[in-house]
């Protein structure tokens, strides 16, 4: 499919090539523009912002907005910046990713290598969890977290993200293990290897690619989540996305766009970093999560 069709003469073909590259570059500039604007705005002073325009470079580079976004910006009466919220996010994202990936791996293993009567039906039932709009579970979950004594806490957010992430992680591992030849485990089973032995000795060594895909997917999803964060936490316990939204929507005082942009970049950095380092796996997760079985 990637072959050019050489049916035209050189002249029109050259024009065609130039047109294609021009379009592609224009689109690339369009997609990069918001990032460029965010970075330059965050490095400007407020005077510079008012004097210049959206795409103007900063007259002098100032990191004040970054300092303020990290450690001094005010939302409501609290003026400690976003660093506490950033750490909150780290504190619940990491355990939630690890737990949901681990459980998903075991589920996928059972659903492919140790099928039992009705396991396919159970998988379908589980899969529907990927499709529901989470609004439909928010009210009962708010009450349940209260009963469990983990409302507005890091463990509460870990719990919610694990529970609603399991459908996806199970799907990832199940679809990956389906491609592993059954003979591999059958032979081991005849040799007397048990459930966990086969998992540790045969399945896990095959799994690094899917583990990376799953971890990246879960990390991006949970870090970027806003809905659970805004409903199930408040004040100092909020994740970074919620704190960012509060900061931007704080209407008291002068609107500090440079601080808003610095805060937005801080909130985006971890997932952007993952994207830059492991873009290939990120894409694989997107399409795997997208096609849904």
């Amino acid at each position, binding site marked *: 499919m990637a072959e050019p069709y050489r049916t035209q003469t050189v002249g029109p073909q050259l024009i065609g090539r130039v047109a294609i590259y021009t379009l592609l570059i224009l689109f690339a500039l369009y997609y990069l523009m*918001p990032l460029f604007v965010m970075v330059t705005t965050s490095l400007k002073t407020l005077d510079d912002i008012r004097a210049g*325009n959206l795409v103007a470079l900063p007259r002098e580079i100032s990191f004040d907005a970054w300092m303020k976004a990290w450690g001094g910006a005010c939302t409501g009466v609290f003026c400690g910046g976003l660093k506490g919220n950033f750490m909150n996010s780290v504190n619940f994202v990491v355990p939630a990713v690890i737990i949901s990936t681990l459980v998903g791996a075991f589920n996928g293993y059972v659903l492919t290598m140790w099928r039992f009567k009705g396991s396919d039906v159970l998988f379908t039932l*589980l899969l529907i969890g990927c499709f*529901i*709009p989470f609004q439909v579970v928010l*009210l009962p979950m708010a009450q349940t977290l209260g009963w469990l004594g983990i409302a507005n806490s890091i463990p509460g957010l870990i719990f919610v993200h694990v529970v609603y992430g399991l459908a996806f992680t199970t799907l990832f591992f199940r679809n990956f293990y389906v491609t592993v030849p059954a003979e591999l485990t059958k032979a081991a089973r005849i040799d007397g290897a048990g459930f966990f032995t086969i998992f540790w000795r045969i399945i896990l060594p095959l799994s690094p690619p899917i583990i990376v895909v799953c971890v990246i997917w879960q990390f991006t999803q949970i870090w970027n989540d806003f809905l659970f964060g805004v409903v199930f936490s408040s004040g100092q316990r909020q994740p970074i996305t919620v704190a*960012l*939204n509060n900061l931007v929507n704080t209407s008291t005082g002068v609107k500090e766009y440079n601080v808003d942009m610095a805060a937005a970049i801080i909130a985006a950095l971890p*997932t952007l970093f993952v994207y830059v380092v492991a873009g290939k796996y990120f894409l694989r997760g997107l399409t795997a999560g997208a*096609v849904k079985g």
Partner: protein
Amino acid sequence: MRPRKGLADYFETALPKIVLGPTLLCALIFVYGFILWTAWLSFTESRLLPRYEFAGLVQYFALFANERWWTALRNLGIFGSLFIALCLVTGLLLAILLDQRIRAEGFLRAIYLYPMALSFIVTGTAWRWILNPGLGFEHLVRQLGFEHFTFDWIVTPGMSIYAVVIAGAWQSTGFVMALFLAGLRGIDDSIIKAAQVDGAGQVRIYRSIIIPSLRPVFFSALIILGHIAIKSFDLVMALTGGGPGFSSDLPATFMYTFAFNRNQIGLGAASAMMMLVTIVAVIVPMMYSETRRQRHG
């Protein structure tokens, strides 16, 4: 194979079920149970605190008598159709362009796709700044000499939902592009070569062979985008906060506002149930028709 069944053997056979058990229990309680729970709440007069006396359809009547809910539905229609159309058209265009043996294809692809790694809150914050009339894009164009240029959708009731479309499409197009590109790479070369031999031009080849064979990709993209549109919440919260007034509300922001800010639990539950019904009504028939089509070739 196994002569006697000891306790260990029973354990071994039950082990897969034991491992899967907690997840299934979670799904049963926290997905299915909670849906029923929300459904029940939607049939009560719960306000600040949940109450469980059956009250019939009062909340649904209240919901559909609520002007704000109608605004949210209308906005979902506008946002959903434009967002999906924009993403599909631009995504397909980018995929076709990238499929012309482009130098630095990987690099360009990475640029188109990076917004997918961002939170909708970050996207919303960035676009809120770009689209603000005071110092943003409008100001920029005016500085260039077009002094009467106005671009104030984001603060104009009735137009702010279109601002949400711009930001939403910016974030999700790259993903659709990636889906289409994968689809293009999966097409059998020999059909295209045969068409070329028959003297078909490039445009014709794309229109009659390549694009029709991307039909399954269209379907998955449609399902995913429809799903994103119906669930859209963060983007509106960050970009317009549902405003000005409630002119850019979507069902998800409506649900949040009424259930958690206005202490109207029953009404919030009813709107959440309507969201679920919408997703089921949109996605189930689409998946059904597509799997049926595939089965019959």
